C-alpha cells in the first residue's frame, strides 16, 4: 500500500515546509513526523519522505541513519531509553536498567514478546540534576522523561505505562 500522511499530519507537514527556504531543511522534523505516522523509518518511509520533499533519497538515508532518534527498525509501543552516562551512572542508572530488564523480561536492545516495550540504553539526555532517568518514546510520537528514579518508582511508572500503551498502535504494524 502506498504511504500517505494522515490529514492532520499533512497540515503539520505543510507548516513544516513553510518554515524554511528549502525543503531539505525540513528533513529532520519531517522524519519525526513520519516516524509518528508510520511507526518507524523503513526504506519505504524514507522513499516517501524524499518524494514529498523532492530530495534524492540518499539525502534522507544519510540523515535517518546519522541521528539516533530515528528508528530504522520497528520498536515496541513504548521505547524505554535509560540514560547511563556519567551522572546517571553515578546515581544508579545501570541499576535502573537492570531492574527494567528483569521487569520487562528483555535484555537491552530487545523488544518484549508482546511488542509493548523496547529497552535501550542512551547517552546523556540533559537530566543530570534529576538522575537517574529514562525517556519513553511512544508510538504516537510522544516523548516523556521520567526522572529521579528508583526501582519502586520504576514499577509505579510501568503500571501507568501499561495502561497508557494499551490503546497505542504497534509501530511494526503502522505501515
Amino acid at each position, binding site marked *: 500500500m502506498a504511504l500517505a500522511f494522515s490529514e492532520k499530519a499533512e497540515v503539520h507537514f505543510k507548516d513544516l515546509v513553510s*518554515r*524554511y*527556504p*528549502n*525543503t*531539505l*531543511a*525540513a*528533513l*529532520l*522534523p519531517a*522524519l*519525526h513526523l513520519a516516524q509518528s505516522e508510520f511507526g518507524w523509518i523503513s526504506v519505504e518511509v524514507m522513499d516517501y519522505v524524499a518524494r514529498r520533499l523532492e530530495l534524492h533519497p540518499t*539525502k534522507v538515508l*544519510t*540523515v535517518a541513519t*546519522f*541521528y*539516533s*532518534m*530515528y528508528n530504522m527498525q520497528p520498536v515496541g509501543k513504548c521505547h524505554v531509553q535509560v540514560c*547511563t*552516562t*556519567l*551522572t546517571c*551512572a*553515578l*546515581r544508579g*542508572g*545501570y*541499576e535502573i*536498567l*537492570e531492574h527494567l530488564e528483569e521487569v520487562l523480561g528483555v535484555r*537491552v*536492545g530487545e523488544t518484549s514478546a508482546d511488542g509493548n516495550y523496547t529497552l535501550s*540504553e*542512551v*547517552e*546523556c*539526555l*540533559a*537530566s*543530570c*540534576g*534529576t*538522575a537517574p532517568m529514562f*525517556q519513553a518514546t511512544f508510538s504516537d510520537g*510522544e*516523548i*516523556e*522523561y521520567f526522572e529521579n528514579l528508583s526501582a519502586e518508582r520504576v514499577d509505579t511508572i510501568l503500571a501507568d505505562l501499561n495502561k497508557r500503551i494499551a490503546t497505542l498502535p504497534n509501530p511494526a504494524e503502522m505501515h
Partner: protein
Amino acid sequence: MEERFLSRNFDIPNAHTLAVFEKHGGYQALKRAVTMDGDSIINEVKKSNLRGRGGAGFPCGIKWSFLPKESDVPKYLVINADEGEPGTFKDRYLMELDPHRHIEGCIIAAWALGIRYGYIFVRGEMQHAIRRLEAAVKEAYAKGYLGKNILGKGFDFDLYVHPGGGAYICGEETGLIEGLEGKSGQPRMKPPFPAVVGLFQAPTIVNNVETISAIPFIIEHGGEWFAAMGVEKNGGPKLYGVSGPIKRPGVYEARSGITVRELLEEYGGGMLDGHELKAFIPGGSSCAVLTPDKLDAVMGFETMREAGSSLGTGCVTFMDTNTCMVRVAARLAAFYHHESCGQCTPCREGTGWATKVLDAIEAGRGRPEDLDLLLDMCSNIEGNTICALGDSIAIPVRSYIQVFRSEFDAHIKQGCCPYPAWTKKRLRSSVAA
C-alpha cells in the same frame, strides 16, 4: 537569598504562559529595546561582558559585532538549544519554565542585528521544552511580538522551533547549522565563520539559550549593571548546575564569584550521607577532572583555567570515593565514541580505540604501556580535528590518567577493578555497540 534573574520565574506557576510572564514584567525589555538603535544595544551587550554560556565563553557583544551590517540575503539568528554535554542541564529549565524570556531575548537580538529569521534548534528528545517554546512562540505571534511590523516599528522577525534528530555533535555550532539545513551534523571547516557564511550560506549568529535569555536583563538594567553582577571579564548572573551523589542536585542561579565548595554546600546540600567527595568536573564532561583541593576555586573562566580545568557550562558533576576513575574515563570515552560524527580521522578512529583500551584496563586486561599509549593518543587527536569533539575526549582522558595515575596503575597491576561495580552484569555502556 539574593535577587534572582535568570531563574526568577522558575517557581512562579504558569510563568511559561504569556499572561503570567507579562504580569511579572515580561516583554518590557523588548519594548525598551525597540526605542534603542542596534548599535547602542550591541554596545550595551559589549559593556555587559556577557560571555557565551554554551561552554566556550566567547564574548557575546564581540560575536554580534562580527555580523555584517549590510547583507544581500536575510540574516539568521540560531539558538543552540542542543544541550547534551554530560553533566549539563541548565538550558532545559530556561526553555521549559521561562520560554518567553528566551523568545524576548531572541527578538531583541534580531532587532539589534537586523535579523529576519530565527531558529531555536532544540534537542529532539526535549519534547516538553519544544512544546513549551512552540506554544510561547504562538502566543508571541498572536500578541504581535513576532511576525510583521513588530510593535509598530516596521520590523519583521519570524522565529521557529526546530527539533534535532539526536546527535550530540549538533551542539557544535557549525554541526548545528548543518543539522538545521537538513544534513548530518558534521561540523564545517572554519573559516568562514557563521557570522559571515552560516545558515543557508547567509550571515548567522549562533548563541546559546542562556546567553540569549540574559539579554532582556541587559536591556532592562544596562550593560554596566550586568557587568557589575559578574566578575571581571565575565558579566552577569549565571545558572549553575550541580549533580552527582549530592543531597540537592539541580540548577541554581548563584552569585558570581562563587566557589565550587559554596556551590556544593550552599546549593547542592553537600555530599549524600556516607559519601565522600573524590573528584569533580566543573562544567561538563569535556572539562578536565579536578580533586577536592580545588574546591575553593571560583567558578570563572580564568580561575578554572588556573585550577587546571575550564568553566565550560558551569554545571558541576561531583563524584564520590566509591567511584572508579578508570571506569569514569572509559564511560566518557564511550560517550564521545558514540557521538563522534565520523567525519575526520583522528576523532572517528581515536575515540573508539581509546574506549577499547580504557575498557580493557577497567576489565583488568590493561598493560603498563597502555597509559602512555592513551596519553599519546590524546595528543594525537587534540587539535588535529575539524571541530572540538576530538579535544573533548582528549582533555578529560588525559586528565583522569594524570590526576589518578595510581588508580590506573592499580587496575593494571591487580588485573581487576578494585571499586564496587555500577552494576552486577556490565562493565560499561553498550550504547555504541
